[in-house]
């Protein structure tokens, strides 16, 4: 599904943020990436989704056999990559529901599938809303404008549920959520789990992993993956902190 090989990336000004990241994600797997603040987690997520502003100095990323780094952000989305933003962006004046429908139709068109008509779209929306216990009212507001932190995160997961990606990258989707919201969001992620779908969860806390059991856990530190293991690595981290695992 996703193959990251020795990825080096720097930002404008030349500072290197990722210093040789390698990661292999197979269909159906859930990977958790943990690591201290500033270790490069969001940078990695951004690069996978095509965020501009980074220079790849070394390494390669293939996604479903394609050279991912050569694709535009929209082509990546259309090929099934979804990034749940750590800080979702506000778009004033653009109706949340309208935005979602444009996104869904863009992806459908790219796949050669028919666009959903208003009725079908609404039906799907209703089903997914219920799943995440999102208020109807949220759909009629402008994208992320005036949303609380928790609402923004739930809206990201709602988008994910609607767009049904192949590879979902969740950047600290759990932070800032209270326990009920965390349960809903986790439920949303678990519902999406399927043999042909993969999830990369970036998180700070063990907490999320209690709800969404990962197949693998990696620790990212100063732009490198310093430890990889199974779910027990997260528990170890909880006890010893990042320093204890060599980060």
């Amino acid at each position, binding site marked *: 599904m996703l193959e990251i090989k020795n990825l080096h990336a720097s930002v404008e000004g030349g500072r290197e943020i990722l210093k040789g990241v390698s990661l292999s994600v197979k269909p159906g797997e859930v990977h958790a990436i943990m690591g201290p603040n500033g270790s490069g987690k969001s940078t990695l997520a951004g690069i996978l989704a095509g965020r501009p*502003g980074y220079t790849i100095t070394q390494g390669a990323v293939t996604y479903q056999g394609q050279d991912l780094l050569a694709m535009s952000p929209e082509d990546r989305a259309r090929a099934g990559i979804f990034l749940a933003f750590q800080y979702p962006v506000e778009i004033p004046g653009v109706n949340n529901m309208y935005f979602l429908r444009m996104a869904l139709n863009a992806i459908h068109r790219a796949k050669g599938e028919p666009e959903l008509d208003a009725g079908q779209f609404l039906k799907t929306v209703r089903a997914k809303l219920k799943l995440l216990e999102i208020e109807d009212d949220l759909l009629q507001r402008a994208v992320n404008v005036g949303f609380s932190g928790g609402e923004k995160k739930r809206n990201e997961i709602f988008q994910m549920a609607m767009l049904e990606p192949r590879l979902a990258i969740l950047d600290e989707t759990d932070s800032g959520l209270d326990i009920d919201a965390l349960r809903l969001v986790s439920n949303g992620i678990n519902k999406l789990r399927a043999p042909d779908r993969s999830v990369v969860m970036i998180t700070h806390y063990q907490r999320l992993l209690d709800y969404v059991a990962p197949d693998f856990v990696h620790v990212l530190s100063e732009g490198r993956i310093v430890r990889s293991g199974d779910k027990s690595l997260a528990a170890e981290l909880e006890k010893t902190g990042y320093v204890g695992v060599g980060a």
Partner: protein
Amino acid sequence: MTDTAQALVGDGYKYGFVTDIESDTAPPGLNEDTVRFVSAQKGEPEWLLEWRLGAYRRWQKMTEPKWANVQFPPIDYQAASYYSAPKQKAGPKSLDEVDPELLKTYAKLGIPLHERAALAGVAVDAVFDSVSVATTFKDKLGELGIIFCSFGEAVREHGELVKQYLGSVVPQGDNFYSALNSAVFSDGSFVYVPPGVRCPMELSTYFRINAAKTGQFERTLVIADKGAYVSYLEGCTAPQRDENQLHAAVVELIALDDAQIKYSTVQNWYPGDAEGKGGIYNFVTKRGACRGARSKISWTQVETGSAITWKYPGCLLEGDDSVGEFYSVAVTNNRQQADTGTKMIHLGRNTRSTIISKGISAGKGQNTYRGLVRVQPKAANARNYTQCDSLLIGDRCGAHTVPYIEVRNPSATVEHEATTSKISEDQMFYCRSRGLSQEDALGLIVNGFCKEVLKELPMEFAVEAQKLLSVSLEGSVG
């Protein structure tokens, strides 16, 4: 974005074609004989010829306004032709008499003139170069006593109304261009809605400049009698030509007691090419008089075309409790320049005005909002709210806000808010990461920015306007 709009992107200016049609065109130049020629061509009564000559004499003593934030080489007013009309039997009686080439042109522009094919609920007056070529749904409107016809026909059939109101809102000598228009205006639209009648359909004029080296000077007069309501739309396009062409229109609106006029414009004159060659100079005077108590006039404009736009649709709030509104989107891309805004003149008591202006600049475009809010001594409790937002795309364009506020009554409340923002890379990336193309992402963000204005447009126009915004910003990112 819809497929149609998708098809537009990459096409550049899609209305740039020229119709091959025989025309009667006056030789270039402007003098009293030109004025007499135009008047004679239209078979006008003596009073109107005199009125035109009066305007011409005033114009000769006037100079072009220089205060606007626009730059252009001097215009040679003697080099242009002041009259061009497609050759056809004078005044077609029905659509069957209209030259098929003309009908084809309008079909190509998406304006079907055949009533059965026409947009449901929209009556159209089509003005081609200097003359009105067809007006649809006239009979149906006639049953309600609504007059909707070309200006020329109004002069012939409803001379008294025209005489009563012409120049009563925009005096001939108001400015250089209004004086010029008053001298040589060729045609335009006329609307009269009788007392208590709510016009059941949108009335619309579609302006098209076709001939080369001509100016277009149309005149629009809309009168809503007591308690009447009318919504009027105006659209315009021109062929793609290397030389600049002048468009100097005058629009006058009159709302009597309890009447309401909603006037919407989607202006898409040829803007010139990316280097600033060619394009229309759109120097237009539009003003509405809320003459009656509790009357209301709303201007909504989406200005995407023209090389230079110079227009300030305003309201004279004469009647007590009258209301003026101005909603504007102005886009400047490449080398376009726009200096536009409004004038709200509060004269009556408890008069209210709202101004919402959205300026979008891309490429090397220069966009200026210039607005006047004046509260006269008798306008007790007048209220104005102004909001001016500018959006910059790229870093070679400019946005400027020039508000003039003159308050001569202490009980007035005047509020002004202004913001300037840049289109954010984060917003673009967020949209694209959800599968939207760059163009769609930009269109979406820009349309969101303009939402408060677009929602004021009638449905059919709002959709058009949204597409147009996306198209006119083509090539401004990436």
